[in-house]
């Protein structure tokens, strides 16, 4: 082997040490920042053992987490799968924080460390920093100190009020975690000063326009009272800002029976749920972005002669494992692999930009043949979530490549019908349906607080807007409702209302059946 080529290599064998790690990091960083024009948080790479990785798994991937039995259950479960060899551990774990923390497993070979550094420390990191959902909903620089606060606060509560007292609140809050996020931005709340100002103006207006004549009108005997009740109801809903989709937020602010520390616990659970909400909406893009970045960087390094053929083969091997997509009738089929779909879409965008077919020019006139794939990708990563990204960028070529088809499934029938396949007529429907399946808000049951009379019986009314006739699983619905009641302190009822026809499909309540 010529000496010059050998010395150009970043590393020679599979063992790693901190020197090779940092040399490789620098080479990757150069490509990521100069060539791909990524914009990342400063990186912090932490080496951990497999046991610590299991620990991290069970605390939902946070380096700091409060204690709760459900994490213990998850740990037991993950450990079981790992020990049985049914599931390997991830090579890395990355946390959306500033500085961006990436965990590397000590068992990884040097080639794997290079791969995951590019994948997590640059791919995911760039996505976390630039995607609009993360920017809007999460505060990367504050999350670690918030978790530290949360952990300490909950420990303090346990010391003061007893573990079981804290546990029952957390149990109930965890049950509502899915309903504990804001899905849409609200207009900013008026400050209390402005609120007072507005009330004063309204009173003034009423005084100015007061006319004694109105009082002399005879009350209409029937319509009046029901109209009054209606007005009362709408008045009080307005005061409580109803309907409210964030159940945890509503309970935290409005429940009459909770102590301040219990409200704080609800808040902690809610903040964590909100922190993870963007990740759930961007699985395909996030993984696609990271996989595309590591693939591009590794190839670039190989072209520069800085990675040996053996290491490159090892990386390609695990890369192709990650982006493997079995077909629907394969026993290994777990659903659509977000790595596979994401990576294929990123590569497809690159192809459309640099080497478009006439079909692509038809479908993507703005980007086809522009040659600016870096800019296009960076723009897509910044401004989309899975649903809009697929709706915008899934090309017919890719639908054909994956041989996607659409099945419709009605509960009553004992068959599923093929609605569309990868042909001219099917592209649009398949694309829309696939995009919708990644819309987290549309797939979760839409349950809102619609009414409560705080001065009356304080009966909390929830409404489930039933879409496509998909009801709730009854056993877990009733159990969850009991958790709501526990936090609310008074009876709670849930009504399922068809979103289109407004028919009431079912009603259930925690009140005794006699009611």
């Amino acid at each position: 082997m010529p000496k010059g080529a050998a010395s150009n290599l970043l590393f020679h064998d599979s063992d790693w040490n901190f020197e090779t790690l940092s040399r490789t990091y620098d080479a990757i960083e150069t490509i990521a920042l100069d060539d791909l024009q990524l914009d990342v948080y400063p990186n912090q790479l932490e080496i951990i053992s497999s046991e610590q990785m299991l620990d991290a798994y069970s605390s939902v991937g946070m380096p700091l987490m409060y204690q709760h039995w459900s994490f213990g259950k998850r740990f037991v479960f993950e450990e079981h799968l790992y020990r049985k060899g049914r599931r390997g551990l991830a090579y890395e774990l990355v946390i959306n924080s500033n500085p961006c923390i990436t965990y590397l497993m000590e068992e990884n070979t040097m080639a794997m460390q290079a791969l995951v550094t590019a994948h997590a420390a640059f791919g995911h990191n760039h996505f976390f920093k630039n995607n609009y959902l993360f920017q809007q909903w999460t505060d990367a620089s504050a999350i670690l100190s918030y978790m530290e606060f949360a952990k300490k606060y909950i420990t303090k509560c346990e010391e003061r009020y007893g573990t079981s007292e804290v546990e029952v609140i957390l149990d109930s809050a965890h049950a509502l975690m899915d309903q504990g996020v804001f899905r849409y931005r609200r207009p900013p709340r008026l400050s209390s000063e402005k609120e007072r100002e507005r009330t004063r103006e309204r009173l003034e207006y009423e005084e100015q326009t007061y006319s004694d004549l109105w009082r002399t009108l005879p009350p209409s005997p029937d319509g009046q009272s029901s109209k009054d009740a209606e007005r009362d109801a709408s008045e009080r809903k307005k005061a409580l800002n109803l309907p409210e989709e964030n159940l945890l937020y509503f309970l935290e602010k409005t429940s009459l029976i909770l102590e301040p520390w219990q409200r704080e616990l609800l808040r902690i659970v809610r903040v964590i749920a909100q922190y993870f909400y963007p990740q759930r909406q961007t699985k395909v893009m996030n993984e696609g972005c990271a996989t595309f970045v590591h693939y591009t960087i590794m190839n670039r390094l190989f072209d520069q002669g800085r990675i040996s053929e053996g290491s490159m083969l090892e990386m390609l091997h695990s890369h192709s494992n990650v982006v493997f997509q079995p077909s629907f009738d394969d026993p290994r089929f777990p659903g659509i692999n977000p790595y596979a779909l994401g990576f294929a879409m990123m590569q497809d965008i690159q192809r459309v930009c640099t080497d478009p077919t006439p079909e692509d020019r038809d479908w993507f006139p703005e980007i086809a043949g522009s040659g600016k794939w870096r800019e296009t990708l960076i723009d897509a990563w910044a401004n989309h979530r899975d649903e809009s990204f697929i709706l915008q960028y899934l090309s017919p070529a890719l639908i054909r490549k994956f041989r996607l088809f659409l099945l419709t499934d009605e509960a009553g029938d004992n068959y599923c019908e093929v609605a569309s396949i990868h042909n001219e007529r099917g592209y649009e429907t398949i694309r829309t349906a696939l995009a919708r399946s990644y819309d987290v808000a549309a797939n979760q049951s839409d349950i809102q607080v619609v009414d409560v009379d705080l001065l009356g019986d304080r009966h909390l009314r929830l409404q489930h807007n039933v879409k496509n006739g998909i009801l709730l699983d009854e056993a877990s619905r009733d159990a969850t409702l009991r958790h709501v009641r526990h936090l609310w302190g008074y009876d709670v009822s849930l009504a399922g209302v068809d979103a289109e026809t407004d028919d009431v499909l079912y009603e259930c309540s925690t009140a005794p059946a006699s009611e």
Partner: protein
Amino acid sequence: MPNFIDRRLNPKDKSLGNRRRFLKRAREELKRTIKEQIKAGKIADVDAEHRVPMPERGVGEPSFQPSPSTGERQYVLPGNHEFSPGDRLPKPSARGGASGKGAGTGESEDDFQFVLSRDEVLDLFFEDLELPDMVKLNLKESVAFKPRRAGFATSGSPTNINVGRTMRNSYGRRIALRRPSRADVAAIADEIARLEAESNTSDAHQKRIEALREELDKLERRRRRIAYVDPVDIRFNRFEPQPLPNASAVMFCLMDVSASMGEREKDLAKRFFVLLHLFLKRRYKRIDIVFIRHTDEAGEVDENTFFYSKQSGGTVVSTAIEEMLRIIEERYPAREWNIYAAQASDGENSAGDSDLCVSLLHRQVMRLCQYYAYVEIIDERETEIFGTTDNGTSLWRAYRTVDSEWSNFQMTRIARPSDIYPVFRKLFARQPTMQLRTERR
């Protein structure tokens, strides 16, 4: 340049607390499982890890979940081979719906088992035995250690400072660095005092005093700079934990297996034997267990037969004691073996045999045994009647005489698990004195 942090040496088991909470939550169910496993397994197996199935009750995490059997859905799936629009596929019967989604989350938790550590198993086992905490701790500790002197160390706790060694180091260092002794300083000071006392005002005299003063100053500075005892001199006694020498023990389990001993009685007896075994295992390296069952004749059997097979016949307790003596003579000479015996019975005995038992115990058995524990398993209703009195079965009355004479004989009546411990109370109470003896040796 990124920030690399090596976390591998950080404390592990971050989620141990969570695991503990989870086990506490599922306690009742796990306890039942462990109890069943102990019932079915061998006595010696209690003291080990156990695999248990994932508990179902009490650890559910409900949330609002869409029900899979309602409504219309659409799935986009990859890998179409031959379908065209309008084709119909039969739904797979199990798993509800054609969905492959979400299969990763709820998969077959039914056959999912996890491992409880030895400590966790013992915790569950002890729970309704109502053992004092110190005893629980004693039983869980697997090997007894005794600290043994092993040279010196440069670090340690202040109580372990070895003064002799430290002062020797200090002395050597003071010599090497020529630290002026107090006598040197005193000599010069005396000299100055003497010279000053002389009323000599000559120049040479003053100079001499001046020089001596300087010398004294130098010595004193030197003394200050070179410490008398420096941290580098200090040596500590080093101790290494050394496992206590363990001998062998044999445990005799004697049980009446006549028809009057039912399922409940045998279960209680088993717990009694397990507890003794745990105690012995902690103290001795090698333990043999001998199972002797008897009706009107006794025989040595294996564990399974001992607990699970039934035999008909009368009850003659002395046959079991005779069998035990025979086995001791044959295989377990009392010089080499620590002999423990545990007898469980419902108190029935044939007329006149109880006196024979007592005389056997008095004359031979009690001299050979370290400890002899007898439990009489009675009905829960009978506790009210017999609770504290000396009345009872013939065997009970006969054994009372042994109890009063031999301190290593213990007897009690049990009706529920929590009654078992008192019979061992003395055994555990002897613990501290025995340890003291080994330490002094």
